[in-house]
């Protein structure tokens, strides 16, 4: 039997660094807090399909909790931090010395430059990269949508994109991996010049990155309306087709119904949602203050969040 004073956190890989920091700050050292990072969907599936137990689930996309875990494995969630899309690169990247906030669309469209993003069908960062491209093609008035159409089998019409499954590469300018972190090795190996990543990843990997304007980086809850103009159809052409609408990037967490140590878990979350929130700023994941809570919120944390219907 596991120690009653241990709590397990299944979390999105991008939360590893801030969570480690928060744990080091956590005053109750008797509690062992185990971090298990993976893709957000994997984290959920380990609980729902593989019968593993986790006390806390923290996802890079808060919407996964109601969609995949309600009602059997969870019935509430809290949005506590955000993230944004940036364009990462290295010193070895072509035109690294010239790039700036204005000319990056031209640079990534150059024939000898390789751009990477993750598979929109598999990874939220992927479809968000597509949204960013569509938003910027309008924002800069540059044919970035044509880049998608020429190099992949993604169809674009105005502010709407259709991503078939499987996604296919037609040209040589784009590289796709199932997870955004898998692009990093390509970037560090010099195979890729630029890649769309979460800002947190760029910060934690100490990569160079180009901050994108808030209108296109999905980091600002205030601009939710702007983002929502874009629609991406993933699994287009299959019965699994789903329409995703542009929305701010926000992390969500919950204590699962299979938790073995609910009490300690809630205590830790309470700490995370109060003193812990500062940490997320340093890691490139601006916190949401106060955190936004939805569903059947446990009383232990009700006072530190803003409860929404």
């Amino acid at each position, binding site marked *: 039997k596991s120690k009653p004073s241990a709590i397990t956190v299944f979390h999105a890989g991008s939360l590893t660094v801030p969570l480690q920091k928060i744990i080091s700050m956590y005053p109750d050292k008797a509690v062992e807090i185990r971090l298990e990072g993976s*893709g957000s*969907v*994997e984290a959920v*599936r380990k609980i729902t*399909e*593989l019968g593993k137990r986790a006390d806390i689930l923290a996802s890079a996309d808060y919407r996964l909790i109601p969609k995949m875990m309600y009602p059997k494995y969870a019935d509430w969630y809290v949005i506590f931090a955000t993230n944004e899309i940036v364009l990462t690169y290295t010193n070895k990247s072509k035109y690294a010395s010239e790039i700036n906030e204005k000319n990056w669309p031209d640079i990534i469209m150059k024939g000898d430059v390789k751009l990477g993003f993750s598979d929109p*069908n*598999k990874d939220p960062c992927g479809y968000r990269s597509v949204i960013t491209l569509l938003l910027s093609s309008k924002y800069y008035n540059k044919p970035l949508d044509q880049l998608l159409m020429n190099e992949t089998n993604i169809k674009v019409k105005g502010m709407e994109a259709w991503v078939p499954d*499987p996604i*296919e*590469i037609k040209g040589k300018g784009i*590289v*796709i*991996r*199932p*997870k955004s972190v*898998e692009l990093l*090795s*390509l970037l*560090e*190996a*010099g*195979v890729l010049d630029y890649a769309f990543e979460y800002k947190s990843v760029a910060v934690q990997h100490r990569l160079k990155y180009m901050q994108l304007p808030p209108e296109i980086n999905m980091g600002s809850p205030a601009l939710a309306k702007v983002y929502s103009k874009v629609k991406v159809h993933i699994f287009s052409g299959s019965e*699994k087709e789903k329409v995703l609408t542009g929305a701010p990037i926000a992390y969500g967490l919950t204590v699962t119904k299979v938790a073995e140590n609910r009490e300690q878990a809630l205590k830790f979350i309470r700490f995370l949602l109060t003193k812990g929130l500062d940490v997320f700023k340093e890691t490139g994941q601006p916190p949401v203050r106060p955190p936004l809570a939805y569903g059947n919120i446990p009383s232990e944390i009700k006072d530190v969040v803003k409860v929404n219907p």
Partner: protein
Amino acid sequence: MIQGFAALALLLISFIVVPLASLLLGTSSQEIVKYGLDSEALYALYIGISASIIATVLLIISGVPLAYLLTRRDFKGRDLIKALVDLPFVIPHGVAGIALLVAFNSRTPLGFILSNLGMKLEDSFWGIVSVMAFVSVPLMVDALIDGFSGVDTDLEHVARGLGASESETFWRITLPLASRSLVTGSLLSWARGMSEVGALLIVAYYPKSINVLIMERFWTYGLQVAKATAIPLLVISLTTFVLIRRFSGRR
């Protein structure tokens, strides 16, 4: 003794069979047709099987000479080379992928030459082959070293006395007598290549090989679909193993 042995053996067999069975149970034939035999899965199966076969063939071509030299010639650094050969087996698969990528990607001088010869590493069939070969090297070479060491050198001497050169002796005597090890080494190399995912995700996500597809479908659609996708692979593998075991058992 035999009772005890049978008990332990049974334990090991159940340890393998129970998980495999619980994985396969509860999958309907409709699901298998729909997910395991759709065009994407069939293509991935084709990619996976052909890449792993090619990787195995390449390993035979280069591993047989290496193992022969390591057993029949005495030179400095022999033990070191034997140990180096085993190293790809101990590093995490993702790291193996990274290492290959760093060394041979098409922007390195070597990778540039190779990619101009049509053998680009990233996202290409040859990338898959390279990954599969890399992770299987120790299997092939170690099996062959054991095999060649087991061949009585008297037989080689007699053959040479009868006029056969070292090369004729190798082809007609040494290699055939090590054939059991060659079969085992090839079988394991092939299987090991087939099962690779971690390094493939880094080096060559495309063209998608069956094992990448299975894992991906698990992440995207969940267990049921992944199981259905995996079943044709398991059936093919099991049949292959049975046939090869039976065939090579006959010798």
